[in-house]
């Protein structure tokens, strides 16, 4: 009996200890609720350390505004940040806009109604928000078919509605979903059922046209079927309409990043210059569509569905995938840097991710179904890659080498790191080392540059020996042949069949 009591005590102590341990241990990479991976040259999955780890979530219940609890968000659809780093949330289902400070602990302002020329006006299903560099707040008020603009004191500035133009159909109903503003206060708007591209408004609210139309590609096979189908069958087939854009962001130079859902998973992001041309750079596999390995027949298979994009810094941008809940980050050359995130109900996973934004070193993702903002902080690995890519963007490749070497210590499969180091050796003239690293990074282009220079160096040094050797060889062969023939008594070559 006594021993049994002792055993109970030990078990109790053990249980308490495990509880304590689990409470005080920080989030470790191996406790992540998702896999972090990347794709190598062969487009195989390679597991990597986590670049970002979940650090918490913000829901409406934990926030207080003017002494009152804010209450649960309802189907929030968009987030954006102000130039100061404050966070603006479109609490769509509750028809209000919420502004939080950059730490997302304090509510700065809740806009539920506003003064519209003396009348009290309110939102109806606001799906998109954006803050310009002049600190003006733009709200896509979808059910009321307008874009509402506020100044920095949240006073109404103007309302953009009823766009009129020859290129718009008669009776067109303007339903803005997402909105973005560039440095010249031009408004870029993704509207519902508008397949011709992103609608652009001048700063006075006048509609001036579309940019970035996604062209429809019809395969030969589909053309063939269309040709042999009867008129009746043709009317039942689905129409070839271009996909709509899903998310929009604008970088410091005024280029528009616009995401769309690409069924083929090849290009889900466009970088539009002011003339509306796509100027995005694709990496060596010509893919900007998220996941590369998407085969299978489950509902978890299929190309990534990119719902939002955020321009980060130094040419980097992140895409949010709602199919598998991943966040893909690319650099300005179109290289996939790292992948994190996943679907699920655990902490740090998404149910219906809808919008992504970055605040300093953290990435925040808005989940409509969970009605929460999930925050992710960068790890040492993520920080090293971000810094190194930033240095490369600035053209400071030699400085980036130390960072890439640290990256390799954490993840020795990182091809970008090998290429980064290899390029630095290339510029410093150490061609053998450059070749070694560039080969590991599978960069045939830069490997060839290093190899060509190395080859020239070797040839230049040894040219005299090579030429002397060649002359000697020719002399030896001709003389040897003559001696051999004289000894054998052969005067002319004979065929095999002569004897």
């Amino acid at each position, binding site marked *: 009996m006594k021993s049994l009591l002792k055993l109970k005590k030990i078990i109790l102590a053990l249980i308490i200890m495990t509880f304590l341990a689990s409470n005080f241990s920080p989030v470790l990479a191996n406790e992540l609720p998702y896999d972090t991976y990347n794709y190598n*040259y062969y487009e195989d999955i390679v597991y990597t350390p986590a670049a970002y780890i979940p650090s918490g979530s913000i829901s409406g219940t934990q926030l207080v505004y003017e002494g009152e609890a804010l209450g649960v968000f309802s189907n929030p659809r968009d987030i954006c940040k102000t130039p100061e780093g404050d966070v603006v949330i479109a609490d769509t289902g509750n028809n209000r806009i919420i502004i939080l400070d950059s730490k997302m602990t304090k509510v700065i302002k809740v806009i539920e109604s506003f003064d519209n020329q003396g009348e009290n006006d309110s939102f109806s299903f606001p799906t998109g928000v954006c803050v310009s560099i002049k600190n003006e707040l733009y709200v896509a008020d979808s059910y009321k078919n307008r874009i509402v603009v506020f100044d920095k004191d949240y006073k109404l500035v103007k309302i953009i509605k009823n766009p009129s133009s020859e290129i718009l159909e008669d009776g067109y109903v303007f339903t803005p979903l997402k909105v973005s503003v560039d440095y010249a206060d031009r408004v870029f708007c993704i509207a519902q059922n508008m397949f011709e591209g992103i609608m652009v408004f001048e700063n006075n609210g006048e509609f001036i046209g579309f940019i970035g139309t996604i062209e429809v590609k019809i395969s030969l096979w589909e053309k063939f079927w269309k040709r042999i189908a009867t008129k009746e069958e043709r009317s039942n087939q689905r129409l070839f309409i271009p996909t709509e854009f899903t998310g929009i962001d604008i970088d410091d130079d005024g280029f528009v990043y616009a995401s769309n859902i690409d069924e083929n998973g090849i290009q889900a992001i466009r970088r539009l210059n002011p003339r509306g041309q796509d100027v995005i750079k694709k990496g060596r596999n010509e893919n900007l569509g998220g996941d590369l390995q998407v085969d299978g027949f489950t509902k978890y298979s299929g190309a990534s569905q990119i719902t939002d994009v955020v321009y980060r810094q130094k040419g980097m941008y992140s895409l949010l995938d709602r199919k598998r809940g991943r966040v893909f980050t690319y650099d300005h050359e179109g290289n996939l840097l790292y992948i994190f995130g996943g679907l699920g109900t655990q902490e740090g996973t998404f149910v219906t991710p809808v919008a992504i934004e970055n605040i300093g070193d953290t990435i925040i993702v808005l989940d409509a179904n969970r009605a929460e903002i999930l925050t992710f902080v960068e790890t040492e690995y993520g920080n090293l890659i971000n810094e190194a890519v930033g240095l490369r963007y600035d053209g400071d490749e030699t400085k980036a080498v130390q960072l890439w070497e640290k990256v390799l210590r954490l993840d020795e499969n990182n091809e970008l790191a090998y290429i980064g180091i290899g390029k630095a050796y290339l510029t410093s003239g150490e061609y053998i080392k450059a070749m070694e690293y560039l080969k590991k990074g*599978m960069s045939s*282009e830069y*490997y*060839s*540059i290093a*190899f060509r220079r190395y*080859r020239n160096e070797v040839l230049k040094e040894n040219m005299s020996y090579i030429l002397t050797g060649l002359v000697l060889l020719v002399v030896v062969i001709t003389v040897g042949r003559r001696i051999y023939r004289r000894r054998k008594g052969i005067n002319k070559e004979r065929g*095999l069949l002569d004897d």
Partner: protein
Amino acid sequence: MTKYFSKDKWKHLFYTVSHPVDGYYWIRHQDRGSIPIALLLVMIFSLSFSLNRLMASFVVNDLDPRTIDSLYELGGVLLLYVLLCVSNWSITCLMEGEGRLKDIAIAIGYSMVPLIIFLNLATIISLFIADGEEAFYYLILFVGIAYTMIMMLVGIMQVHNYSLAKTLVTLFLTMVAAFIIIFIALLLADLIYQIYNFFYSIYIEIIYRI
């Protein structure tokens, strides 16, 4: 053994490479070819093929070396060789071809020589080229393949005493025959597997009942 690998046989191999029409004629009519040499050549070709895939510079060859298994490839090449010989023989038998299976095997085996030489040459050359210079590599490969094709064509032609047109027709039919053989082999394999499964399930049933 000396009979198969005698000096005369080796000499005749190189004579055949340099004078295919003449060389193949004497292989058929004076038994100057050797089956073991032909087999050896096919094996050497398979090894060179694997070596090329493994060792060629990654400027021209971006295969993952971990996915290359030379033994597996040797099996594949030998199987293809046997398939080609048998299907050609089965067609030419019906089309008044004079060649025996032995002659066909030698004809195809000997025609590997240029490919072996040029493939290895290309592998070595590839180690000295950068991107933009791949044309040299592919030119060498092309020459090797073209010479081998010509040798194979001439070999089949001479061994069976065919005209060129008839050779081309039989080669096409050979391809058809090869597909039929593959089809039947797969059918047979499936059947054997089903029979095996049948007896295996009987065995399991008995085990559970007793």
